[in-house]
């Protein structure tokens, strides 16, 4: 029984990692399983978001404040992961914007954004 409580405690105390893993796997699943190009991009964004959480979790200290210099606070989160993720978010936004732009162009060219129908149109023509 004690072992069980121990294990449960360990699992719960790292709940942020479980959320990371859940987002990562579900994002990747959507990318693979969906044929709709916009939904694929949603999955991709979810997948990228999980990476942000992975980095930020590592920089967080329980009871720590934001990393602003102040004589009243001595314990604060590690600022570097935040900076890195700020960069990663920009990359993610750029990727999503470019992906959506491509989907718009694909919709203009093919009249659909379902992968199956697009491949079918190309096969028929070839």
């Amino acid at each position: 029984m004690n072992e069980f409580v121990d294990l449960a405690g360990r699992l719960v105390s790292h709940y942020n990692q479980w959320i990371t893993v859940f987002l990562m796997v579900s994002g990747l699943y959507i990318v693979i399983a969906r044929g709709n190009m916009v939904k694929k991009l949603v999955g991709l964004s979810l997948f990228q978001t999980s990476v942000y959480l992975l980095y930020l979790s590592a920089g967080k200290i329980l009871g720590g404040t934001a990393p602003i210099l102040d004589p009243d606070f001595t314990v604060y989160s590690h600022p570097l992961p935040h900076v890195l993720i700020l960069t990663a978010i920009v990359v993610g936004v750029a990727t999503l914007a470019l992906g959506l732009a491509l989907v718009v162009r694909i919709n203009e060219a093919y009249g659909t954004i379902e992968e199956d129908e697009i491949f079918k149109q190309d096969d028929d023509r070839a």
Partner: protein
Amino acid sequence: MSEHLPALQVVVPLLGAVLAALVRRPGPAWLITVVVSFATPVIAAMLLVQVLDGGVISYHLGGWDPSVGIEYRVDVVNALVLLLVSSVAAVIAPFARLSVLSEVPDDRVAWFYSMYLISLAGLLGIAITGDAFNAFVFLEVSSLSSYALIAMGRDRRALVAAYQYLIMGTIGASFYVIGVGLIYTMTGTLNLGLIAERIGDVESTRPVLVALAFIVVGISLKLALFPLHVWLPNAYAYAPSVATVFLAATATKVAIYLFARFVFSVFGAGFVFADLPVTEILVVLSVAAIFGASTVAIFQSDVKRMFAYSSVGQVGYITLGLSLATVTGLTGGLVHLVNHAMIKAAIFMGLGAVFYRVGKIEFDDIAGVGRRMPITMSAVVIACLSLVGVPGTAGFVSKWYLIVAAIEVGWWWLGLLIVLSSMLTVIYVGRFFECVWFREPAGEVARAGEPPLEMLVPICILAAATVYFGIDTELTAGMAERAAVALLQGVR
């Protein structure tokens, strides 16, 4: 001035990209591209000379210490990659003007050059940086711009190819950054050299093993290691000719460099290849790439697609060399990295010239084109012979090293497989020869002629280079061997 060369290597093309986007007109944008493309190999050559004279160059961006800031670090390995990428860019630049004008709508030509220069800056950045996260940013900089480059192709299938590449590329880059994050939590640093120093203490922990797996798979997506190559054939086939030449010659090569850097310098060959079964996995995948992709190449009806599949196979040779983790194997892999860049640049440039004159690139549409464009096609034939590995060409040198490396570790069957696989190359290259030389020109082809000199000269330079580096191997094989020794020693 000379102490800031590492920063200039990346900043010059980046500024050029901004300028090209600002001028908006095709002519000036091209001129900027030419100036930048000729400046970058000069900088790379100066860096290489500095490295050969005085050892590793360490450049601290903004004066920050490497433990907190970003360090650019140039040794023999990445000096070679920098010189390769920038030289290819310099050869492409004069060729690009007419080809881009004919394939990209006028109002997008300046954007094309802007994307092209950003992609160049990103690739040079990956090669020069000594910081794991900075490498991710440059990876995405070069990838995002290459998706845009591919999407500018005329065929609507270019859009789908770009989209698929975007999905796969982003997954690859995210895998890479997950791996880097795990390493960061275990070692507390993002500097490749510092990671290499500290990783020995934690290398048997699970996060480090997981990080290795994520990084290897992530970069393998980018370098198109079989079976993670599915984005490549369509992307190369439907992109504008200039984009295909540039990406085929440089993008996968820089990803391979990053792979080698992580596996050998950061994690260490002893950990990756001796303690883990990475050699076995990589050898199997590489051989599968060589035979699988070469076989598929034989059955393509689109010439560009055929050579794109051939690229997947040729990447297999390079990873095969790396996977042996010996000096000879690594030398073979690196020398083939350089040689294949030149060979594929020459071939795709020749096809670009054909497309410029004929407007199509299916086998049936370009039958007999060799009789109308003999100089262009002769150059492509020379490059193809080098692809097969005919003695006296650059391809022979790399295959020789690979076979010797296979026999050195006692795997004579692997040497035999490499020889056998050349037969497959002979088949698809032979099919191409038969089509362009031995059939009667008809339709558009009958009216075609040699391309203008500004396209013809770059093709001939590359074809001549594949022959020259088959005879004088000092610069390619000699440098590759020094790079191999440096990689196997680790970063510091």
